[in-house]
């Protein structure tokens, strides 16, 4: 085994990690937006809107991410929607994460007891205060673990975006592998890099949890 080429290209790999984290953050942001929007639309009074949201969620959750990103990159241009690799990756990650986020956020919102809201108003809290302290903060606390693990999952999913040559760690790894023919060494090191990245993110997310959201709940 010869790790020389990998060590030589280590800076490129680190920049690839930056690309991965960038895609993950952008994808997660879009996913949360789609998630919140989807939850609001899910409770619409019009049946067709509800049906559309449900169909969207079921469709995304029951098809592979690879097929979704292939579809956006190779098929959509044929109806006039042509998107570059990196935005394609962000949109695919956001749509995919969004479908899961809709279910997660919906669960959190439903976990808020109506009695809590009524009690808030009874205590004289303003509408914005009720929303912030009685609905939002407890809901966030309820969904935080699921949302956090979804974020880490999204970061790992970015590796599939290499199939459309988006800029992230796996794409860089593939290039180094082709130049050096040292497949196992390159992918072994890259796997370790992903592990370290997800470990760092998990620690960071746990920190946010213990500092802001870990208050006692009956």
């Amino acid at each position: 085994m010869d790790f020389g080429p990998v060590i030589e290209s280590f800076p490129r790999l680190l920049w690839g990690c930056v690309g991965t984290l960038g895609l993950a953050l952008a994808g997660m942001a879009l996913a949360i937006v789609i998630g919140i929007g989807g939850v609001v639309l899910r409770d619409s009074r019009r049946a067709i809107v509800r049906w559309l949201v449900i169909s969207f969620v079921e469709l995304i959750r029951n098809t592979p991410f690879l097929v979704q990103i292939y579809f956006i990159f190779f098929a959509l241009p044929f109806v006039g929607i042509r998107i570059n690799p990196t935005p394609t990756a962000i949109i695919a990650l956001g749509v995919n994460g969004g479908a899961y986020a809709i279910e997660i956020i919906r669960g959190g919102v439903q976990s808020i007891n109506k009695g809590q809201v009524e009690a808030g108003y009874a205590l004289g809290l303003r509408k914005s205060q009720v929303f912030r302290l009685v609905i939002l903060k407890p809901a966030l606390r309820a969904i935080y673990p699921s949302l956090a693990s979804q974020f880490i999952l999204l970061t790992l999913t970015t590796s599939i975006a290499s199939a459309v040559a988006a800029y992230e760690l796996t794409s860089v790894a593939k290039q180094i592998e082709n130049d050096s023919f040292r497949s196992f060494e390159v992918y072994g090191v890259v796997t370790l890099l992903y592990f370290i990245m997800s470990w760092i993110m998990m620690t960071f997310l746990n920190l946010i949890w213990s500092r802001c959201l870990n208050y006692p709940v009956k």
Partner: protein
Amino acid sequence: MRPYKFSELKRRHLLLGAAATIAMPMILTRSAFAVTPDELKKRGKIIVGIQGDNPPWGFVNSSGKQEGFDADITELYAKELGVTYEFVPLEVANRIPALTAGRVDVLFATMAMFPDRAKAVQFSKPYVANIITLIAPKATVIKTNEDMGKLSGIAVPRGSAQATQVKKNAPAGTNILELDGDAATIQAMLSGQVQAVGGNMFYKDKLNESKPDTYEDKLEFQRVYNGACTRLGEKEINASINAFIDKIKANGELAKPYAKWMKQPVPQFPESIEGVSFSAS
């Protein structure tokens, strides 16, 4: 004897079953490593790495059958050895790893002969010529290497000769998309994701199948020769393939697939290529 009830399964039966499930892939292993022509004849079969989506060199048609120039050459070589053949269709970037890992005995897989590849695998004498080009729609203006920098993007298959050439010749900062194979690269061109692709002399035929008379070769990077690949150090099979190639050149058998797929007469092949040795030493 009364039927076995599930609860009567003894622990050791379960353990045996578990061991078998895990061990089965290992038992079914079929080895493809360190071969000589004699071993191939004894085994009765040669396992050949070939391209699965690069017409007319090697492609799987819609009935699932492997066809192409390299397929015809494989057939001739297998006949020479007196064995049957089995194809393993490979992605561009996977060809050399599949050979060095022992998944195939030999590569007849559009392998252009380059010095850095010669460090990883053993080439045979050349048996077919190829031209590495840049292809784009006729309307796009590309006359020099610098013009490549003005394009929004160029797609190439990872690990291919054209990937090396485009990266070498395009100005710094050109947007080069390295995709996972010939099929993805062609799809990128057809969907308009890129304005040009690095390919070989047959890409334009494939592209023009979808939109007739739209695409043409813009730049010619390199004329290359393809050889069969075997693992480094395996002298006997390398010698056997070289003898075979000399034979089909001399008796005209090479000309038939050449006319059918390359649609050209057989060219003169060079006696040597710098940095690439044709014989194992």
